[in-house]
């Protein structure tokens, strides 16, 4: 296992210590349970947008804590959702009279643990469950669609609304709106290695790729021969477009995401292809995000996410944000 770590069991705690050291102006870190909180939390009369989930997807979520985005993030062990008391601690650190919006990616573990925390909370808590992964085709005979890349877009936009002072109802409505208009799909070229497991989560041949992967090193929906960038982008983009569907004339945000080890040179290349394919269909890309934002440790691969914009979403997207990973 090729990793820069000490004891596998300490990876998350040690990493959070480094994060706290790196960003003293932006955030503080509580340990036991582990919670990453905005430096200036609680922010009076502002809805606290709180998210979390297993670690290993960095910068998601802790890298999005700060002005204009998350009030707190709750990092669980690698690929394992955090426990309810950690979520409760995050609520306690950030609630400031306007309630809490929990952003939960749709995995059984995340849903159950956040649900328990919400039940136990004594403040006004609302939950949005992100489920943007179109790779999960049959969502009635499964745990439902996973929450993947769309999570970042939702956190940014709802975080902007909270920063602006919108109330919990309005933030929740916006979150549901973003959730209903965002779709994603991902591909892996290599498997990640979970530190405590010590070996790759699945085996891929030298000329194979895994299509429709999640972000936890789960194997994907199917395996296929590795293709050119053109082929790969088309395999991700077509199902995303057709699912909502996104139509000619729609204005969208295009998010081209690296799963970790796919370098920027390849990611921009893929992004350029996606822009061209969308233009060919008359879908108008108005905003874009390109980079490693929702990752799966050192997995090579990428995902594409489309969000159908409206004026309010676009305007909120553009408002200032100041976090370790997103800043403008």
């Amino acid at each position, binding site marked *: 296992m090729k990793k820069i770590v000490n004891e596998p069991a300490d990876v998350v705690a040690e990493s959070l210590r480094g994060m706290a050291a790196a960003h003293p102006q932006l955030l503080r870190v509580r340990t036991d349970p582990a919670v990453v909180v905005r430096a200036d939390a609680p922010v009076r009369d502002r809805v606290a947008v709180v998210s979390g989930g*297993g670690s290993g997807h960095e910068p998601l979520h802790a890298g999005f804590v700060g002005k204009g985005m998350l009030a707190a993030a709750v990092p669980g*062990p690698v690929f*394992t*959702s955090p426990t309810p008391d950690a979520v409760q601690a995050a609520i306690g650190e950030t609630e400031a009279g306007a309630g809490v919006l929990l952003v939960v990616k749709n995995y059984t*573990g995340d849903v159950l643990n956040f649900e328990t925390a919400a039940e136990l909370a004594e403040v006004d808590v609302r939950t949005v469950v992100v489920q943007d992964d179109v790779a999960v085709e049959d969502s009635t005979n*499964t*745990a439902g669609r996973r929450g993947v890349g769309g999570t970042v877009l939702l956190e940014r936009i709802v975080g902007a609304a909270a920063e602006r002072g919108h109330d919990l109802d309005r933030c929740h409505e916006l979150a549901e709106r973003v959730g209903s208009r965002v779709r994603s799909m991902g591909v892996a070229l290599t498997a990640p290695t979970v530190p405590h497991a010590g070996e790759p989560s699945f085996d891929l041949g030298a000329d194979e790729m895994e299509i429709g992967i999640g972000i936890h090193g789960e194997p994907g929906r199917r395996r296929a021969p590795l293709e050119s960038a053109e082929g790969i982008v088309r395999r991700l983009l077509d199902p995303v477009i057709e699912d909502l569907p996104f139509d000619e004339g729609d204005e969208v945000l295009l998010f081209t995401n690296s799963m970790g080890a796919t370098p920027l040179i390849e990611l921009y290349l893929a992004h350029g292809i996606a822009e061209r394919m969308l233009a060919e269909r008359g879908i108008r890309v108005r905003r874009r995000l390109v980079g490693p934002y929702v990752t799966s440790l050192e997995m090579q691969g990428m995902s594409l996410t489309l969000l159908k914009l409206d004026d309010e979403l676009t305007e909120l997207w553009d408002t200032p944000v100041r976090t370790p990973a997103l800043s403008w």
Partner: protein
Amino acid sequence: MGGCSTRDVIAAVRAGSEAVTEHRDELVRLDREIGDADHGENMERGFRAAVSQVESAPSETPGAVLKLVATTLISSVGGASGPLYGTAFLRAASAVGDVTELDGTAVAAALQAGMEGVTARGKAVVGDKTMIDALSPAVDAAKSAAGSGHGPSGVLAAAAEAAHTGARNTEELVARKGRASYLGERSAGHVDPGARSTALLLGTFAETTGVRR
């Protein structure tokens, strides 16, 4: 053939912890095949924490031990299995109340309550390829063993055997709940890690209780 005391329950929890530690890699491997490779790690972390809680704060009744295990699992496991096992132990604790010794019927009732807790939280039914596929036959077997007058050790032995068969039979199933469900048809051909850990725990509980008799 006596009842199951607080000490017995504590011993069972300790043995359960040793068992999941011993089978940690097996559970990780099962979970790597159709999940995210953490089930062994999760269970080991949870049961270690449970043992240390149970040993540091003396509980007076079997129910109190089960409740402490429940809250510790909930606050230390995470993932899907944390709330599910946690809820199972919580409901089992409620079911046994504050008696100081459990007889066979109480053990069967605790298992049944535990299973209902898992179902309430996780909404899985038999055949969905989850821990329910081990737990449900275990409850049936436990109830019939208790009905024929078996004590805790006989009830747990029956439950464990049924759970093992149930777990083994998950191999052919296509998952419809939890992370394995994303694999669709590809989830068939692998034993469900949660069903395996359920069988493992019940087997260990049966053994410990059997030895203590």
